[in-house]
C-alpha cells in the first residue's frame, strides 16, 4: 500500500514540476531571446512578466480544438500523449541529491534514451495522421534527424560510462567526486550537447519545425491544449537533456555549501541557458548539412573518443 501512495505522490510532484518548469522555461526563453536581440521581453503581467506565460496558457486552454477533416482521428488524438508521456517517465532516474532518486535503475540514463524513441514515434504519428504535407515533411525530417543523432549521443556517453564503470545515475555522480567528467571528457561533453540539441529539435537543428518553410512542422494541424502538450513536451525534453548533461558531465548534485537539489537545479538551468543562447545565436542548418554533421563529424569524433578513453584506461590499470 505504501508503494501505491509513493507512486501517486511522486507522480503528482513530477506533473506539478513539469508544468511549472515549462511555464518558467517559456518565460526564460522569451527573456533570453529578448536580451540577445536588444529587446526587453514580457514586462507587464507580474514581476518582469513572469505571469505572462500563465496568461498564455489560459488562452491556449480556452481555444477551440480542431480536427483535420481527412486525417486519422484516433492517431491524431493519440500522438500528443505519445510525445509527452515518455518524457514524464524520464523523471524516474534523475538524481536530485544524495539518495534523492525515485528509482536508481541499473541502466540509468539509457532508460531515458530508450523512452525518447517512443517520443519520435509520437511525432511520426502526429505528422502522418494530420494528413497535411507540411506536417508529414516535418515529422519525416524529425525522425531522420533523431535516428542519426542518437548514435553520437550514445557514443559520447560511453566514454563517461567506461571511466565510471557503471550506468547508474548515482554511481556516475559518485565517480565525479574529484573531477567533473566535463574536464576529463571535453569532446564527449560537446558531442553530447550538440546531439541533445538535435534530439530535442532545438535550433540550430530545428528543421523539423522550420517556420519559414514548413509552417510549424509536425504540429501544424494541432490547436489549443493539444498543441500545448507538444510545446510542454519540447520544454520538458530540454530540461531533461540538460539534467542528464549535468549528471553525466557536470558533477550532478555535487557542490559546496548549498544542498544537493539546489546545485542540481542551478547547473541544469545553466545548461538550459546555454541551449537557449545557442538557439538565438546561430542560424538554422540545412537538412543535408545536418546529416553530414552527424555522420561525418560527430560520429567519427565519438568513436575516436571512446577508443582513446579505452586505451588510456587500459594503460592506467
Amino acid at each position: 500500500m505504501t508503494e501505491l501512495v509513493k507512486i501517486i505522490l511522486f507522480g503528482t510532484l513530477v506533473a506539478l514540476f513539469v508544468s511549472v518548469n515549462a511555464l518558467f522555461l517559456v518565460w526564460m526563453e522569451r527573456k533570453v531571446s529578448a536580451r540577445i536581440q536588444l529587446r526587453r521581453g514580457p514586462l507587464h503581467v507580474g514581476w518582469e512578466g513572469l505571469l505572462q506565460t500563465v496568461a498564455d496558457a489560459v488562452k491556449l486552454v480556452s481555444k477551440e480544438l480542431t480536427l483535420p477533416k481527412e486525417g486519422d482521428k484516433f492517431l491524431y488524438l493519440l500522438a500528443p500523449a505519445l510525445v509527452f508521456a515518455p518524457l514524464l517517465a524520464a523523471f524516474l532516474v534523475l538524481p536530485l541529491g544524495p539518495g534523492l532518486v525515485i528509482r536508481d535503475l541499473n541502466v540509468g540514463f539509457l532508460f531515458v534514451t530508450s523512452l525518447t524513441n517512443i517520443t519520435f514515434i509520437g511525432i511520426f504519428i502526429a505528422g502522418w495522421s494530420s494528413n497535411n504535407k507540411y506536417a508529414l515533411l516535418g515529422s519525416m525530417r524529425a525522425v531522420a534527424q533523431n535516428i542519426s543523432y542518437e548514435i553520437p549521443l550514445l557514443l559520447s556517453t560511453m566514454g563517461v560510462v567506461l571511466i565510471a564503470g557503471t550506468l547508474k545515475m548515482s554511481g556516475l555522480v559518485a565517480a565525479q567526486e574529484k573531477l567533473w567528467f566535463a574536464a576529463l571528457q571535453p569532446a564527449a561533453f560537446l558531442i553530447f550537447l550538440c546531439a541533445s540539441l538535435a534530439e530535442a529539435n532545438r535550433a540550430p537543428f530545428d528543421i523539423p519545425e522550420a517556420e519559414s518553410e514548413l509552417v510549424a512542422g509536425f504540429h501544424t494541424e494541432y490547436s489549443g491544449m493539444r498543441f500545448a502538450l507538444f510545446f510542454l513536451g519540447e520544454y520538458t525534453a530540454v530540461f531533461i537533456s540538460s539534467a542528464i548533461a549535468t549528471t553525466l558531465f557536470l558533477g550532478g548534485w555535487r557542490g559546496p555549501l548549498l544542498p544537493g537539489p539546489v546545485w542540481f537545479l542551478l547547473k541544469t538551468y545553466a545548461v538550459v541557458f546555454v541551449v537557449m543562447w545557442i538557439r538565438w545565436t546561430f542560424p538554422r542548418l540545412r537538412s543535408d548539412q545536418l546529416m553530414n554533421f552527424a555522420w561525418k563529424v560527430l560520429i567519427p569524433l565519438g568513436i575516436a573518443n571512446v577508443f582513446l578513453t579505452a586505451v588510456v584506461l587500459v594503460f592506467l590499470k
Partner: protein
Amino acid sequence: MSLQELVFLGVAGITLAGACLAVTLKNVFYNALSLILCLFGVACLFIFLGSEFLAVIEVILYIGAIAVAILFAIMLSRPMFQKNVKRNPAKILQAFAVSAALFVGLARVIRSTPWPAAETDGDYGLAAIGKNLLTVSLVPFEAVSLVLLVAIIGALVLSAKGEPR
C-alpha cells in the same frame, strides 16, 4: 490474485493483442504501430523478469531503429488515401503454413533447452552480457558484425546504382 500477477496479465495481454493486430489490421500504418505495441510489451516483460538492460535495448533497437525504419518505408511507399489491396486467401494460407512451421520449430528448440535461472544481483544483466559477448560468444559476435557490414555495403552499392558519378 496479487498485483504482480495482474500487471503480468496486462502486459502479456498487450503483447498478444499487439501481435494479433499487427497481422490482421488492413491499414499498413496501423500494422506497423501494432508491431511497435507488441515490441513494447516484450520490453515490459523483460522488466518484469528483472532485466532492465534487455528491456532498454529492446526499445532502442527494435522500436527506435527497426520499427521506425518500417514506418519510413511505409510512408515513402504509398499515400494515405489509397484503397487497401484485397486479401488473397491462397497467400494467407501459404503465410500461415510458413509461420506455423517456424512456430513449431522454435517451440521445439525452446522446450528442449534447459533454462537455468540467472542470478539476480546488481549489474548482473549488463556486465554478464558484455563479458559473454567478448569471451564465450566472440566468434558469433564477430560473424554478426561481418554480416551487418556486408549488408551496409550492399545497401550502399544498390542505392548508388542509378546515380550518375
